[in-house]
């Protein structure tokens, strides 16, 4: 009975926190973005990603680091107390939520793998781009019944280029477009999308869409080193969109052009490219380190009192 209560309370705290934080983020992310005003598209994409996964991350952290230990250490094991209606109901909700998340992520991964196998059928390896980490991003030349230019694969992303894209783009345009796709692969954007599928929440669509737009712009920034490159990438975008209507190239993929509404904004941004405003490749995450360190030190120093307070909260939940 003790184990059942421990699991019930932990799951209940997790689901309450997850729903509360998700609601808070889904309503307040625009305000956060406006307040923090990231200086680059990459910074904005990172901020939106952090906000999107914050409810899941924080809920897991609080459950594992505080709820579970507080229950195990402070709850007397001898009492024959029942699980309680509220923890039981919330625990079931949590299991349904987690189950749905796992199912969505697994389905998306299965569809993406199946599509990738189909696209790679009869493909030829063009080259390998060596990442800073030493791993390589393979670039495949694929048939025309596949997306024009896209990154597919979650843990081992691959860049796919169709024959029609190779024929339509000049060598400079193709090279810049490939750099854009490689930027997606290096940042594991498909893996991030998979995480979104797992931590689904109804009101998060707008935030995910904004992340998607910023990610595309961040990849544009990573692909462009001069005004000439910017014009080449803009030309590639226009040519690719002329090749066919913009449609979803499949789940967990990052196509060169993912939405027709973003095309105009991206082209205008690229033709206004300015060397002086080229965002630095290194982010400002360095400033986050002291904040995280301060949080960890504070958490360690006050851990005992936090655990006892958490136990009071869980006691209230069980009652």
């Amino acid at each position, binding site marked *: 009975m003790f184990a059942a209560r421990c699991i019930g309370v932990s799951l209940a705290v997790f689901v309450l926190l997850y729903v509360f934080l998700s609601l808070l983020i889904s309503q307040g992310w625009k305000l956060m973005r406006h307040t923090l005003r990231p200086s680059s598209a990459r910074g904005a994409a990172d901020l939106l990603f952090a906000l999107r996964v914050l409810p899941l991350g924080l809920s897991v952290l609080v459950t594992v680091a505080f709820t579970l230990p507080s229950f195990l250490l402070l709850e007397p094991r001898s009492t024959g107390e029942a699980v309680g209606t509220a923890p039981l109901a919330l625990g079931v909700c949590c299991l349904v939520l987690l189950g749905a998340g796992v199912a969505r992520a697994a389905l998306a991964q299965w569809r993406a793998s199946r599509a990738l196998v189909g696209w790679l059928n009869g493909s030829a390896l063009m080259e390998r781009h060596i990442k800073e980490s030493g791993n390589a991003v393979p670039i495949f030349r694929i048939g025309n019944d596949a997306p024009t230019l896209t990154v597919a694969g979650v843990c081992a992303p691959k860049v796919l280029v169709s024959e029609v894209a190779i024929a339509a783009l000049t060598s400079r345009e193709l090279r810049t477009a490939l750099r854009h796709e490689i930027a997606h692969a290096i940042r594991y954007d498909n893996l991030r999308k998979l995480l979104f599928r797992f931590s689904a929440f109804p009101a998060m669509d707008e935030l995910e869409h904004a992340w998607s737009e910023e990610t595309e712009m961040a990849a544009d920034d990573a692909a462009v080193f001069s005004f000439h490159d910017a*014009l080449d990438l803009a030309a590639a975008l226009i040519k690719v969109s002329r090749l066919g209507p913009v449609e979803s190239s499949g789940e967990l993929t990052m196509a060169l052009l993912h939405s027709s509404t973003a095309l105009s904004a991206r082209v205008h941004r690229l033709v206004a490219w300015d060397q002086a405003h080229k965002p630095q490749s290194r982010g400002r995450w360095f400033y986050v380190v002291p904040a995280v360190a301060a949080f960890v030190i504070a958490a360690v120093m006050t851990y005992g009192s936090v655990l006892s307070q958490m136990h009071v909260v869980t006691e209230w939940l069980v009652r």
Partner: protein
Amino acid sequence: MKRILSLLRRAPDVHFGPLEQQLLSILWTRGSATVREVVDDGEIKLAYTTVMTTMDRLFKKQILNRVAEGRAFRYSPRYSQAELEKAAVGQTIRRLLGSSATAASLPLSYLVEAVSEHDAGLLDDLQRLLDQKRRELRSEIRGDRRSGDRRSKETR
């Protein structure tokens, strides 16, 4: 959005005649007006009774609100211009789709065609912008080369 949906559901027709449109645009500009104020304004050269009948018709269509002011009424628009335009577009599409079951796909294909034409126009505009920027870049490079040549001649 709810207002537009309710407008779509309730109002039988959000398409207006020329005089109705003219009166609506006057009321959107002024905020509210009596029939006398509209006639005295001079923008519409029509008889008082014609304007009164038309405004009464718009009130009955639930497009205008009215409150008694002395012996006359003060009219004001129930919806903003944007709301009415959205409702009109929605109603047109609904009418097209609902005209007959067999013809339902036909108007939708016209719509897709119109959107495609719009997309093609957008791409042409973007291409023109890109070509212009390429020309600017080329002339900038040529200018840089010329000034570089001049400088090297001077140093010689």
